[in-house]
Each structure stands twice: as structure tokens, then as C-alpha cells.
């Protein structure tokens, strides 16, 4: 008797492995002209895995203090064998993950996959997207370079503009009145302990919910299938869909490897609290649309502080965006047209402002 078979039988007798295999064989994924959008969620999950692995590797050498952080990243990139690769992959993968998560979110939005009963899946996904931005923001500071130092000053100052509790938020984030070594220590804690803990639990919940309800079929496809039931197509999750998903992961890995090898992530210059912000300073691309808006907003709008209005406006917009599924009252209704319109506007605004930011002086 072969060893593998024995192990399998041993496990099966104890934990009922055949149940899992049977379940995987019966799980079906709908197949239609929009099916390829399903891959972006899985790709984001894959990149999350890459982040966990490379993050653990970086932890072996990184030191979270203002006197050592920059030097330790420099050491990783110049002395440690393949250190440059691990760090570049971590940085690039973070960026790609925010991209794939955003594509995933907009595809879910426009294919109306958030409809009942999937509202909780949408909410957990939006929370995860905010966590990703939190990962990006906190991780950005860790190399303690000039760009990240000023980005953190600006970012935590924006948080401080929130009325009433803003000051507390800013002090809580900075670990004091200013961005100092205390901020670095805090951000390190958020980045490697607090956020991964919450994110792992939320990812589990998100995937569990997706599993519970199955993949959503877009309303237009659903209508066609109801009119002509013979056109309904499904594929088995295992192995058909899983193998396709694996190919998508390979594509992501290829892009990641290419970027990390040919465009290694830069380290920049070490942060100096007593130096002026360098010309051409700007945040990461995914914050650019907000950056550009804040830059264009006048200091005073009527009697209100322009900055504050901008910040509050974005906060309100995010809250509305998260709650949009609850405004959608089903197909053909006026509410649904408004929701779709809001989605087109939001996507348009983000894209136009981002592009404009890169061309504007």
C-alpha cells in the first residue's frame, strides 16, 4: 500500500476528508461573458499571501527606530542576498494589491454583486480596502525616508482636521504632537501586528461569505438565463475554476517579478525633521486624486475652511459609497440608475483627477 494512500485514509477516518473533496467537486462557478472579473478577488488574495511571506522575511532584518530604520532597509537592499528582491516585491505587491482590490471593488459594483443577500460581503470587502490603505500608509513610513516622512506629516495632519476628535486621532497616530521616532514605532506596530490580525480575520469572513452565497450572476445575465434556461452555463470550482485562477495568479506573479527585477523600489534619502520638504514631493498614486483635490481647493470657501470642507467631503463620499448597496432598490428602478450614475461619476472623478495630478505642475 502506498504511503500517500495510507495517510489519506488515516486523515479521512478522523476528519472526513472525502466530505471536503466532494464539496469541492460539487461547488460550481457561473460561466458568462463577465466571468473574468471574478479573478481579481482571487488575485488580491494571492498578493495578500505574497505580502505576508515577504513581510515576515523583511522582519528578520528590519529595525523600527529612527536611528536604524533607514540603515536597516539599506542593509537589506545592499548586503543581504536577494534582499533587494524581497523588498521590491513587498513594495510592488502592495501597490498591485491596491490596484487589483480596486478593480475588484468596481467590478463588483458595476456588476451589482452587492445585492441582497451579499451586502455583508460588500461591507467586509470595503473594510478590507480601507485596511489595505492603512497598510500602505503605515508601511510607507517604515523605511524612514524623506518622502515618507512628509507624507506621514500630511496624512496625520489631515486626520487631525476631523472636527472634535481630530486632535486625539492625530496624537494617537503620531504618538505625540509631531511625527517623530514615536510615530515610527507605532506605525510599525500597526503594520505588522494590529492590521494583519484584523485583516486575516476579515479575509476569512469575506471568503466565507463568498462561499456561503456563491458567485453573484449579473442581473443582465440572470435575465437572459431566465428567458432561455438552456444558455445557463456553470463550471466546476475544482479543478476547472481553480486552475484558471492559478493561471491568473501566475500572471500576477509574472508582472510582480518583472516590476521588482526591472524597476527595483527606491529607498530615497533619509528623513530629516529639520530639512525642507523637497520639490516634486507627492503621495503614492492611489492617494493622488485626493492630493490633487486638496491642492486645488481654495483656502476659504465662503466662511468655511477649504481644507476642512475637502476632508469632510471625502469622508462623507466614502461613507455614502460604502452604503450605496442599501440605496439600490432592485432592477429598473430610479434608485438603481442613481447608484450606477454615482459609480460612473466616482470612477470618472478618481481616474481624471489621478491623471490630471501627474500632468499638472
Amino acid at each position, binding site marked *: 500500500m502506498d504511503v500517500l494512500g495510507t495517510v489519506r485514509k488515516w486523515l479521512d477516518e478522523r476528519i472526513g476528508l472525502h466530505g471536503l473533496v466532494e464539496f469541492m467537486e460539487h461547488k460550481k462557478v457561473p460561466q458568462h461573458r463577465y466571468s473574468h472579473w471574478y479573478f481579481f478577488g482571487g488575485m488580491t488574495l494571492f498578493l495578500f499571501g505574497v505580502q505576508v511571506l515577504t513581510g515576515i522575511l523583511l522582519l528578520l532584518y528590519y529595525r523600527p527606530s529612527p536611528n536604524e530604520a533607514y540603515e536597516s532597509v539599506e542593509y537589506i537592499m545592499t548586503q543581504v542576498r536577494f534582499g533587494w528582491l524581497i523588498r521590491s516585491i513587498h513594495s510592488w505587491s502592495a501597490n498591485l494589491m491596491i490596484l487589483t482590490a480596486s478593480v475588484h471593488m468596481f467590478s463588483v459594483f458595476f456588476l451589482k454583486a452587492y445585492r441582497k443577500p451579499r451586502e455583508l460581503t460588500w461591507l467586509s470587502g470595503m473594510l478590507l480596502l480601507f485596511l489595505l490603505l492603512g497598510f500602505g500608509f503605515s508601511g510607507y513610513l517604515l523605511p524612514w525616508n524623506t518622502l515618507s516622512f*512628509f507624507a506621514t506629516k500630511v496624512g496625520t495632519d489631515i486626520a487631525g482636521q476631523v472636527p472634535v476628535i481630530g486632535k486625539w486621532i492625530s496624537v*494617537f497616530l503620531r504618538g505625540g504632537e509631531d511625527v517623530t521616532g514615536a510615530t515610527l514605532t507605532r506605525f510599525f506596530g500597526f503594520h505588522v501586528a494590529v492590521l494583519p490580525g484584523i485583516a486575516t480575520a476579515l479575509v476569512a469572513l469575506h471568503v466565507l461569505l463568498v462561499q456561503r452565497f456563491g458567485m453573484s450572476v449579473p442581473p443582465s445575465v440572470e435575465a437572459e438565463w431566465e428567458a432561455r434556461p438552456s444558455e445557463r452555463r456553470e463550471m466546476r470550482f475544482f479543478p476547472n475554476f481553480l486552475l484558471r485562477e492559478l493561471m491568473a495568479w501566475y500572471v500576477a506573479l509574472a508582472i510582480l517579478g518583472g516590476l521588482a527585477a526591472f524597476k527595483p523600489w527606491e529607498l530615497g534619502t533619509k528623513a530629516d525633521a529639520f530639512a525642507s*520638504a*523637497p520639490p516634486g*514631493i507627492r503621495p503614492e498614486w492611489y492617494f493622488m486624486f485626493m492630493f490633487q483635490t*486638496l*491642492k486645488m481647493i481654495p483656502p476659504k470657501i465662503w466662511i468655511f475652511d*477649504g*481644507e476642512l470642507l475637502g476632508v469632510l467631503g471625502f469622508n462623507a463620499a466614502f461613507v455614502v459609497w460604502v452604503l450605496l448597496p442599501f440605496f439600490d432598490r432592485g432592477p429598473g428602478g430610479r434608485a438603481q440608475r442613481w447608484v450606477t450614475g454615482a459609480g460612473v461619476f466616482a470612477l470618472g472623478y478618481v481616474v481624471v483627477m489621478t491623471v490630471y495630478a501627474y500632468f499638472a505642475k
Partner: protein
Amino acid sequence: MSEQSLNAPGQPKRRLFVEIFLGAGVAASLASFLYPVLRYIFPPETAEATSDTVLAGRVGDLKPNTGKIFRFGSRPALLILTPDGQYSAISAVCTHLNCTVQYRSDLRSVWCACHNGMYTPDGRNISGPPPRPLDKYDVFLKGEEIYVRRQGNA
């Protein structure tokens, strides 16, 4: 029989009593865990820099129409020698979003690289997003040394 007559009418009251005390007990213990954690999260206040006067530089450090950053306590400040030979000292922390400003000789203005804010050499906000002027400090010379003092602390 007698037991029932004792309990039946009193039971809801007794339950309410237990619920209130149990609830209050749990809430009190939760509060006693949370309060120290909340206090712990916010760092102790650090004393502001005690000195209101700092040495910013020496005469000859700056050529006319240039500026340099110096430390004022824990924050950066900017000393400028204007083209007409006047010293000006202002806070270097942009009133918009906290970036550190710099003196631009080509514009004869103070400029913030983060969001393109512009100030005059004495700190007045003239264009871009800054909502307020930069804090202005008094400058005085003691021999060759340039001292800067917080205003209103003569």
C-alpha cells in the same frame, strides 16, 4: 404552595435586580480594563521647549536673498536674509498640512513643496492652500550672533 406564592409575584423583580447588578458589574469591570488601556494609548504630554529664545545662526551665515532652517525647540523654523538686508524669522511648519517650507531665492518668497503654498518672507500667506500666516519671531543681534525669540516674550 407557600414557596410558589412567595416566588411567583416577586420573580420578575428579582430577575431585574440580578440583571442590573450583573450588568453593572460586567460594565464596571470592562471599564476598569478599558480605562488604563485608553490612557496608555495616548502618550504623556512632553514639556514644550523651555527656552523662548534660540541661537539661529551667525552674521555671515546667510547671503542676501537666502534662507536656512534652524531648530526652534522641537520644530523647524526659517531664518531669512531678505534682498534688502533685513533678517526675518518665521516658523517653517506650513499652516496648511504641516510640511516644512523653504525660501525660494528665485521667487523671493517662502514656498511649500507639498501643495504649492506661498508666503512672503515675513510669513504672510499669499497664494495656494495655506489658511493662515506662519508664526513670526523677533530677531535680534548680540554681536555676531543672531537670536530669535517668540513674540510676546520680551
